[in-house]
């Protein structure tokens, strides 16, 4: 009897669904075999927790008396500029926005201690946020200046909308030059001093569904500690890259645009983040369930770090110039071992995404499903 999402949901409602994480499924398949697991397991939970710059929030802060039209004017949250080119009191705050008076890299390397991502973390944490706005005044919106405090509990709407998250695979960054460089992949020491990578590997959502057969537009997910949805394919989504014989992309490939109610999220899973010399951003916690509809889908979820490869790229020259020649391909198992060998040198490795936190999210999502708090969804439309 073929499994369907509808049938799995019925099992979840009866409290009978078998749910395991993308990490647990690896050993389970080794122990019980593919066929038996495909029959017995209903859902595999995947997760990731890493810095994702293409993130931000839409806020509607409610009408003032008299009314103000921020569209065409300016708006700041805790001195961080937001985009107000929308209707009267709608705004969008991006994760990498910086206060106008932040010195940036004028004193190199800049610290970027406070930006859009940090405002989002504080907003979600329930702290008051200073809102400063100006408009040009119209007959129907006469007010020109506004200074007030907003708090998430009073907001009409606060929506996290991230145009690009959950990158399917990512580069391993190294520095071949003679000086320290400060990148979005962290601090890179000269002459192959270290190698930084950023993926949850075997736990990462799109490595477990490499051809997007279950994850599609409309898929319900764990987002920032609350419930979210896949809104669309993300910006730079590119499924047409080289893949391994098992279908795993060998370089950055698919991405997802995500949306969810910020009011139900938690600062634990939305963290303001500062990359020295690079900028501010937001670290986002995401968990995506994969319904085990057949053996093919299960096989994909059993992927392990040793079967996933990432390209090593020089961030001193090749990356900034847009000539990304691949120095070497390494597996996530090698990366997690603590060092990789590049050009005869043993190079220590660091992760920027937290595997420990990804594991925690995969377990939370598992728990939600087991406790009938989270049902699976059919995609409304597939991703390209």
């Amino acid at each position, binding site marked *: 009897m073929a499994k369907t999402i509808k049938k799995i949901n019925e099992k979840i409602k009866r409290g009978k669904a078998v749910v395991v994480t993308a990490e647990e499924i690896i050993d389970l398949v080794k122990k019980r075999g593919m066929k038996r697991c495909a029959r017995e397991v209903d859902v595999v939970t995947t997760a990731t927790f890493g810095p994702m710059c293409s993130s931000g929030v839409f806020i509607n802060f409610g009408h003032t008396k008299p009314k103000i039209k921020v569209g065409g004017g300016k708006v700041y949250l805790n001195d961080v500029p937001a985009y107000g080119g929308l209707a009267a009191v709608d705004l969008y705050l991006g994760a990498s926005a910086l206060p106008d008076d932040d010195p940036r890299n004028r004193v190199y390397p800049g610290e970027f201690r406070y930006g859009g991502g940090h405002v989002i973390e504080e907003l979600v944490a329930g702290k008051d946020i200073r809102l400063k706005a100006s408009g040009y005044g119209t007959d129907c919106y006469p007010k020109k200046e506004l200074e007030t405090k907003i708090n998430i509990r009073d907001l009409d709407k606060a929506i996290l909308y991230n145009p690009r998250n959950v990158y399917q695979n990512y580069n391993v960054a190294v520095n071949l030059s003679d000086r320290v460089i400060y990148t979005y992949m962290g601090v890179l020491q000269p002459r192959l001093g270290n*190698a930084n990578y950023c993926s949850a590997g075997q736990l990462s959502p799109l490595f477990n569904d490499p051809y997007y057969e279950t994850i599609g537009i409309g898929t319900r997910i764990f987002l920032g500690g609350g419930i979210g949805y896949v809104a669309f394919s993300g910006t730079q989504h590119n499924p047409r890259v080289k893949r391994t014989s098992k279908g795993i992309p060998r370089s950055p490939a698919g991405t997802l645009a995500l949306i969810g109610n910020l009011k139900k999220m938690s600062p634990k899973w939305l963290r303001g983040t500062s*990359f020295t010399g690079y900028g501010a951003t937001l670290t986002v916690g995401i968990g995506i369930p994969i319904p085990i509809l057949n053996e093919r889908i299960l096989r994909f979820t059993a992927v392990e770090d040793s079967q996933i490869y990432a390209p090593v790229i020089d961030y001193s020259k090749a990356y900034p110039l847009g000539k990304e020649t691949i120095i070497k391909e390494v597996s996530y198992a090698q990366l997690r071992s603590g060092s990789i060998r590049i050009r005869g040198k043993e190079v220590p490795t660091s992760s920027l995404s937290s595997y420990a936190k990804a594991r925690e999210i995969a377990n939370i999502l598992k728990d939600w499903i087991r406790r009938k708090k989270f049902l699976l969804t059919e995609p409304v439309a597939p991703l390209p």
Partner: protein
Amino acid sequence: MVRKKRVVLTFPHSLVDKPITYHLVKDYGLVFNILKARVTPREEGRLVLEIEGERKNLNKGIKFLKDLGIRIEPLAQDIRWIEARCTHCGACIAICPTQAFTVDPKTRKVSFDKKKCIVCELCIKACPYRAMEIKF
């Protein structure tokens, strides 16, 4: 018995131009390694030292420094890992020259061993969550 100590010395400005560490070698037979130094002319100087020597000599050397008016603090107080801010990503792991950070292979959680820290501050710039703090 040979002992090893890591200390932070704070010099008042009156002592900044005096060759003090030289006496540690010559008069007390101590071996030292300068881990970090910051001298602000006409203000004060700070020196992170690893000092090694016979217990008796080590104590004498430290007394000599104290008598001169130098403030001595153990190094460990100077760097702080704020675990609540740490996401256990591991960005600090490869950048640390003394392997003061380790990832538990099972839990995948990061831990910080103060004893191995030489306060080079590389982790402070490398930590995206500002979980490492320095008081120097």
